[in-house]
């Protein structure tokens, strides 16, 4: 009841959630339609295996990503509506009713997003199949099919992820600031430990093992997940070592320290993005170089691996960028009142932008630093075992590109949003939210 009304009256606010649901559903359906395609009659076993692996790996990633993306946008959404939820609570809504409202909204938005994703997913799936066929990994005769598996998984996963994320977000909001740092820290250290073991186990493989890349890649990803979960504390550590002077820097450091918890999501995306993109792309480059140096032609398995690596990185890059833009835009535009207060206290628009810029820079540097650390932890063992080097030459170029994308997205979004927000006169900005 409440849910429908609140969506109908504020469609704009749900745009971010809709976008993540849409993208998530599109990716899940695109790849799961490979299952449908592989399951058709008369598809040879090599083709079928290629298609199923692609669907399985990317489908799994996709589910995780949808959950994170929707969760992060919903958390921001719920936090910004704290006042509205409080008002509803004061006018007699029980916590259960609030929960139903927020979860209901999320489900409706997810349904719309999933429905919108069907068309693009069909086109995407067709393109993917053609790509596999062009590279000879799948027989030309295999026709494309978009069937039950694609529909069911796409809609179900998106719905479940949205509902679950909304439930968690609203529970956190209605419970107030209750810290549950213990479990999180345990998981983080667990991820770091398993990641280290996984990375170290690379040395147990021989150079020609087909699975050589797996422990290094998974280790790097696990390490980055561990770092990501520790993000607020890492940020704290970086802030303590920053010699920042000047009014903008001074304000930025204090803002970041206060909001470390809220910024964790953004930092998490940055760390994961840097680690996954750098590690996967560099390892793939090393692999290709080695194969080329040995003068062997790539087998279908090699090609599959390469395609998968590039697709996974591509998906993660797009997703994380969308998430970053999403959450940074929301977080920055929400600060209209704070910026107004700074201006009334004597900050020029340039100083406000400077503060936002320094904040973005510190976030980028922290995220990239720990992301790169995780990536290197995977890259170095892999390179040592596979090609007798230590650090492949490609890592610099790839690293630089990844850093450039991360910095451009983070700084670009926050500065452009802040500049737009600053167009509101200071007095009006302060009055808007009060």
């Amino acid at each position, binding site marked *: 009841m409440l849910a429908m009304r609140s969506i109908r009256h504020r469609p704009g606010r749900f745009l971010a959630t809709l976008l993540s649901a849409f993208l998530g559903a599109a990716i899940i359906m695109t790849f799961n339609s490979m299952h449908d395609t592989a399951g058709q009659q008369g598809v040879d076993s090599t083709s079928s295996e290629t298609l199923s692996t692609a669907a399985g790996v990317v489908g799994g990633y996709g589910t995780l990503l949808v959950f994170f993306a929707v969760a992060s946008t919903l958390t921001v959404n719920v936090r910004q509506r704290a006042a509205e939820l409080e008002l509803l609570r004061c006018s007699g809504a029980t916590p259960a009713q609030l929960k139903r409202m927020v979860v209901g909204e999320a489900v409706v938005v997810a349904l719309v997003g999933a429905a919108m994703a069907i068309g693009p997913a069909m086109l995407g799936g067709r393109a993917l199949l053609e790509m596999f066929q062009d590279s000879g990994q799948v027989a030309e005769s295999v026709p494309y099919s978009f069937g039950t598996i694609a529909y069911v998984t796409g809609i179900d996963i998106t719905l479940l992820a949205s509902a679950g994320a909304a439930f968690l977000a609203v529970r956190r909001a209605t419970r107030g600031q209750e810290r549950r740092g213990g479990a999180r820290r345990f998981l983080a250290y667990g991820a770091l430990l398993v990641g280290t073991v996984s990375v170290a186990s690379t040395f147990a493989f021989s150079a020609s093992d087909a699975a050589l890349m797996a422990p290094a890649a998974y280790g790097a990803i696990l390490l980055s997940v561990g770092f990501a979960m520790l993000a607020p504390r890492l940020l704290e550590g970086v802030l303590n070592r920053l010699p920042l002077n000047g*009014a903008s820097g001074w*304000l930025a450091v204090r803002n970041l320290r206060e909001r470390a918890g809220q910024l964790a999501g953004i930092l998490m995306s940055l760390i994961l993005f840097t680690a996954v993109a750098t590690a996967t792309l560099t390892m793939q480059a090393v692999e290709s170089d080695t194969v080329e140096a040995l003068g062997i032609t790539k087998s279908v398995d090699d090609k599959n691996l390469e395609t998968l690596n590039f697709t996974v990185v591509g998906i993660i890059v797009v997703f994380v960028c969308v998430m970053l833009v999403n959450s940074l835009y929301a977080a920055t535009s929400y600060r209209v009142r704070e910026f107004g207060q700074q*201006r*009334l*206290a*004597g*900050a020029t628009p*340039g100083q406000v932008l400077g503060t936002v810029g320094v904040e973005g820079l510190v976030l980028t540097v922290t995220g990239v630093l720990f992301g790169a650390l995780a990536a290197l932890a995977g890259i170095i063992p892999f390179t040592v075992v596979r090609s007798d080097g230590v650090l492949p030459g490609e890592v610099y170029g790839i690293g630089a590109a990844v850093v450039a994308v991360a910095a451009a997205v983070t700084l670009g979004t926050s500065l452009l949003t802040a500049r737009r927000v600053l167009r509101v006169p200071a007095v009006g900005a*302060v009055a808007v939210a009060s």
Partner: protein
Amino acid sequence: MFRTGSRRGHDQGPAPEALRLVKVTRTYGSDDSAVTALDGVTLGLGRGTFTAVMGPSGSGKSTLLHCAAGLDRPDSGIVRIDGTELTGGGEAELTKFRRGRIGFVFQQYNLLETLTVAQNTVLPLKLAGQRVDRRRAKEVLTSVGLGDRLGHRPDQLSGGQRQRVAIARALVTEPRVIFADEPTGALDTRSARDVLRLLQQAVRVHGRTVVMVTHDPVAASYADSVLFLADGRLAGRMDAPTPDAVAERLAHLGDDVAMGV
């Protein structure tokens, strides 16, 4: 620095004006739906005075304050603060002009939530790139009765305490003029009295000039004089105001305007 406070008693001639408005007009909206918030207001306020600006809702009180303080730009007319004319220019220029000349106290305090009491107080100095004297900040905060709350955050303080932090913040740059926009609007009577006494002290002890917009006759009675505003025009002045006299005058403000006085 400037020592207006000690000189005031000896000066026989007219005190230099802290604030001067000449034929200031401000219109909102366009053509058909245009509303004239200020209609050729001319006034001058001497240094070291405490003036209340009163009038019914929509009389242009806030617009007057915003225009005088350089937060809003008048369509026409001249605004002069401490002898310097407020000219056009970007927001950055206006901000730099306001620094050190103007202090603000708002109804909604406008303290930054991420900063402590002490940090909020020195923020204007930080932003102006001045050296921050911690001792001075502590001194000012002690003078508003918050010497033991330096490390607290705004959300740990009561409304009255927050407003006193805002006053400390307005005082710390030693501005020529302090503008207060309904400073007691959100406070209980006791906190309101503390805040008004602090504003009074800023004038009597430190020689600042205070301009306060309010709709409360009791608050206005703390000022040296009251300016009445109706429909964007000045509608009279009262020196040494009492709450009753102010309320009485306010009640008949509409009549005066209707009669064209």
